[in-house]
């Protein structure tokens, strides 16, 4: 492999890693801060993609599709939190798994009723559909670069909100010690609603943004759900920078694995996870026992 090809594959790897981060960021927030295992993360990814497709086709405007998918899922997240999820805080993980599995079935059935089961594609606006020539035969789609930048922006935004704002402070305090935070009169519970809604909306945003490159189909969230959990566990539960590192590692391992060891490409990611967990049982940036 010459240096040029290596550079292109590195670009592929980083781009894939950034996308994985975007999908997993919502999961790590909900999992790490609320302590809720949300198996339905994958179906909200799918729902975001279908919403983006539906809105883009209906309005002819891609931006409306993306923002609409984000906004609708945010509202759905708020509603779900106040009706269902808030009953789960502090309950054992089995109840959470059961409820979120139920959500998978319901959302998937709704998708079937609302959008059907066809494979769909989201048309890109003219200015995003170009591509840059890399070699004499290979081009790189501009939209993939745009997605990468967006993923970076989301990563920075999440990090800044949690580290630098008052809300972020409450969130961190609550994640550290729920009872003590409540006892001190800090409005942790009302912040919870928004954390969950943002988590769901990030999953949907990821689906919506990736829809034009991944195509929209039933079950598209299943594989992403598993990879998101790997990212979260690898990076350290609840750690946003950890999720970013985990996602990039998976992007690298997966891309170069496919090129150099195609027979093992399917398991390399899980081997990586196993090795990391043996060396650091709480994940790369994980702090304490879960």
């Amino acid at each position: 492999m010459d240096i040029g090809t290596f550079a292109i594959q590195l670009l592929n790897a980083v781009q894939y890693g950034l996308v994985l981060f975007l999908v997993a960021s919502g999961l790590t927030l909900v999992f790490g801060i609320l302590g809720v295992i949300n198996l339905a993360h994958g179906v909200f990814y799918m729902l975001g993609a279908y919403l983006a497709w539906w809105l883009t086709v209906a309005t002819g405007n891609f931006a409306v599709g993306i923002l609409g998918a984000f906004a609708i899922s945010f509202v759905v997240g708020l509603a779900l939190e106040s009706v269902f999820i808030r009953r789960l805080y502090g309950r054992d993980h089995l109840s959470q798994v059961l409820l979120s599995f139920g959500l998978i079935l319901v959302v998937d059935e709704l998708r079937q009723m609302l959008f059907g089961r066809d494979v769909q594609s989201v048309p890109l606006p003219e200015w995003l559909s170009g591509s840059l020539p890399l070699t004499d035969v290979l081009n790189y789609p501009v939209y993939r670069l745009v997605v990468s930048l967006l993923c970076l922006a989301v990563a920075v935004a999440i990090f800044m909100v949690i580290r630098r704002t008052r809300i972020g402070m409450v969130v961190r305090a609550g994640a550290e010690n729920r009872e003590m935070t409540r006892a001190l009169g800090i409005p942790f519970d009302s912040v919870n609603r928004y954390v969950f809604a943002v988590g769901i909306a990030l999953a949907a945003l990821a689906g919506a943004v990736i829809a034009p490159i991944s195509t929209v189909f039933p079950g598209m969230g299943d594989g992403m759900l598993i990879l998101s959990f790997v990212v979260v566990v690898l990076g350290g539960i609840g750690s946003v920078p950890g999720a970013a590192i985990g996602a990039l590692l998976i992007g690298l391992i997966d891309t170069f694995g496919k090129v150099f060891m195609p027979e093992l490409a399917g398991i390399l990611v899980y081997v990586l996870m196993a090795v990391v967990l043996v060396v650091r049982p709480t994940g790369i940036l994980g702090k304490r026992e879960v």
Partner: protein
Amino acid sequence: MTIIKPTTRTLAMTRRSFLGATAAGATGLALGFPRPAIAQGAPLKVGLMLPFSGTYAKLGQFIENGFNLYVEQKSGVLGGRKVEFIRLDDESKPETATDNMNRLVSRDKADVVIGTVHSGVAMAMVKVARDSGVPLIIPNAGADEATGPLCAPNIFRTSFSNWQPAHPMGKVVFDEGHRNVVTITWRYTAGQQMVGAFAEGFEAAGGTVVDALTVPFPEVEFQALITRIATLKPDAVFAFFAGGGAVKFVTDYAAAGLKGKIPLYGTGFLTDGTLKAQGDAATGIRTTLHYADDLDTPANKSFLSAFEAKTGETGDIYAVQGFDAAALLEAGLGATDGNASAREALFAAMAGAKIDSPRGPLSFSAAHNPIQNIYLREVRDGRNALVSVAGEAVQDPARGCRMA
């Protein structure tokens, strides 16, 4: 849900009703109506074990509609027996397939079973069918084994073996001047059997497969391998993907600028039922399959218009496979007066069936796999338009089958 309710007819006949019936029968024959059924008491129980939910739900629905269309055209009667359906959603889950199939055979006492799409599920069905002897017609799953090492007198297929649509493509690609080809597919049975059959045909013609790339099933992240293809710069690429994966691969391939520089070939699944989502990215892709949307035969035209009238949708290969499953069943039942338990005669008649299918002439090999034309198609204006017949009366080698 379409369940044709059983109706019991009495054999009692007065002279007047006999005369009336004769007259009606004669008129019916003259006008081309189906002959009135000779009552046989209980209706024939047809078990439809298909994916009615999940990724393959649409395929299951089209197969069922195709089967129903044929039965409706025969006024709900096959070989003199009223048909009653037992629908069972297999969800494309191999882990529950054996239980589901056993339920159809033992509890519901299905006389015949039709199913299914997913090869893993179909293999479980094949095993139960071999043990129980129940007639099984496979309307899609292409696993070579079903009409290979696991072939049996009671197992028939109206679709294809994975080998079948892929092998003729080898010669087509060679004849179009390509010598070095890269193949790419998912690392699972269907993909590897098709790519293997293509390589067999292509290397026999004199070509070389430079690299056989694979992606874990059902992953759809292709960027690394598309970069690899661009580095290898082969004369052409042969791909097997289906459904969402096919859409993504074809659009990624075009977005990476390879479309128009390195021609893309594949089996028909790459562009079947996915063209709307693939859009212009699919234009020019050549594929081989046992069907083309625009086959100009009376059987295909009347099938497509009847299917559209019934369902409001455009018929496709899956609908054809369901339609032909019913035709094959009728060919068998016709020879036994609707008696599905006279198995030896039933199977002999099915094996000898010659069906004027919408896909062209259809007969069956000693292994009970279809002998059929394989067509070369090209994507033009959002359709899989017929280019030529890539192989006439193509027969699967049925490796490992003791009946062949």
